[in-house]
C-alpha cells in the first residue's frame, strides 16, 4: 500500500502540469515574481512618501495625527496572522483539513480586524484632523501608500475566506497544499510590507 502510494506520488509529480522543466511549480514561481514586482510598487510609494516628508506647507503633520498604540496593535494583528497562516499550512500538510480551515479563518479574521482599524484611522484623520487626500503632500502620499496596502490586505482576506469556504465544502485537502502555500506567500507579503510601513512611516520621527 505504501509502495503503491509512493509510486502514485512519483507519477503525480512527473505528470503534474504545474511542474516545469526546472522542477519548480509554475504557480509558485509566478507568485514570487508577482511579489517581487509588488516590492517595486511599494518601494516607489515609500520613496515618494519619504521624498515629500516634512515638505507639506499646511498641517496637520504626522505627529499630530498618528495614533501609535492603535497602529502597534494593528502591526501585532498582522504578525499574529502570519503565525496562524503557517499553522494552517502545517495542519493541511498533516491532512487535518478542519484544523487548517480554523487557522485560515483566524487569519482572515485578524486581517479583517486590521482593515477595520485602518478604516477607523482614516475616518479619524478625515473627520477629526481634516486630513484628506488633497489636503497636503503628507495627506496624499500617506493615504495612497497605506490605502494600497489596505487594499492588498482586503484582497488577501477575500482569498483566505475562499479557501475556508472550499475546506468547509470538502473541496480542499493536502493535495491542494501548494494552492494554500501560494495564498500564504501573498499573506506574508502584506505583513512584511506593513513591517516596512510601520517603521518608516509611523515610528521614525
Amino acid at each position, binding site marked *: 500500500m505504501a509502495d503503491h*502510494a*509512493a509510486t*502514485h506520488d512519483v507519477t*503525480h509529480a512527473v505528470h503534474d502540469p*504545474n*511542474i516545469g522543466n*526546472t*522542477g*519548480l*511549480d509554475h*504557480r*509558485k*514561481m509566478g507568485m*514570487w*515574481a508577482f*511579489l*517581487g*514586482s509588488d*516590492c*517595486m510598487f*511599494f*518601494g*516607489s510609494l515609500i*520613496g*515618494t512618501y*519619504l*521624498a*515629500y*516628508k516634512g*515638505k507639506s506647507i499646511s498641517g496637520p503633520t504626522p505627529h499630530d495625527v498618528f495614533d501609535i498604540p492603535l497602529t*502597534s496593535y494593528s502591526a*501585532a494583528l498582522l*504578525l*499574529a496572522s*502570519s*503565525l496562524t497562516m*503557517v*499553522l494552517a499550512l*502545517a495542519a*493541511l*500538510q*498533516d*491532512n487535518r483539513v478542519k484544523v487548517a480551515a480554523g487557522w485560515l479563518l483566524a487569519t482572515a479574521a485578524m486581517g479583517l480586524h486590521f482593515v477595520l482599524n485602518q478604516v477607523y484611522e482614516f475616518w479619524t484623520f478625515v473627520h477629526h484632523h481634516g486630513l484628506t487626500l488633497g489636503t497636503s503632500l503628507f495627506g496624499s502620499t500617506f493615504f495612497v501608500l497605506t490605502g494600497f496596502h489596505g487594499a492588498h490586505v482586503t484582497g488577501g482576506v477575500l482569498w483566505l475566506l475562499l479557501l475556508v469556504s472550499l475546506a468547509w465544502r470538502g473541496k480542499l485537502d*493536502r*493535495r491542494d*497544499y*501548494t494552492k494554500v*502555500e501560494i495564498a*500564504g*506567500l501573498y499573506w*506574508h507579503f502584506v*505583513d*512584511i510590507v506593513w*513591517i*516596512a510601513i*510601520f517603521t*518608516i512611516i509611523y*515610528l*521614525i*520621527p
Partner: protein
Amino acid sequence: MADHGTAAATHGGGGGHATVKTYIQVAIALAIITGVEVATLYVPGIPNPVLVISLLVMSAVKFYLVVGFFMHLKYDHPIMRALFVGPLAIAVAIILAVMALFSAFLLLPRPH
C-alpha cells in the same frame, strides 16, 4: 498517502520546512522586537540617528524572519530566492534614488 503532503510541500520547488516549534519561536521573536521598537519611541534622549538606525535594523530583522521562515524562502529553491531578492534590491534602490532626487535623507537635517 502520508508522503503525499510532503511531496506536495516540496515538489513545488522547496527543500524542507520549518517546524511548528520554529514558527512559534519566530512569532515570539517578532512580538518581542515589535515591543522593543515601540518602546524605543518613548525612551527620552536617544539621538535621532541612533533611533533611526536602531528602528531600521529591527525592522530588517523582522522582515528577514517573516520572509525566511514563514515564507520558507530560507529553505526554498535559489530561483525563487532570486525572483524575490532581485526586485527587492531594485525596490530599495528606487527608495534611495527618489530620496536622493529630492534631497530627502532620514538622518540629516532637511533643507527648506
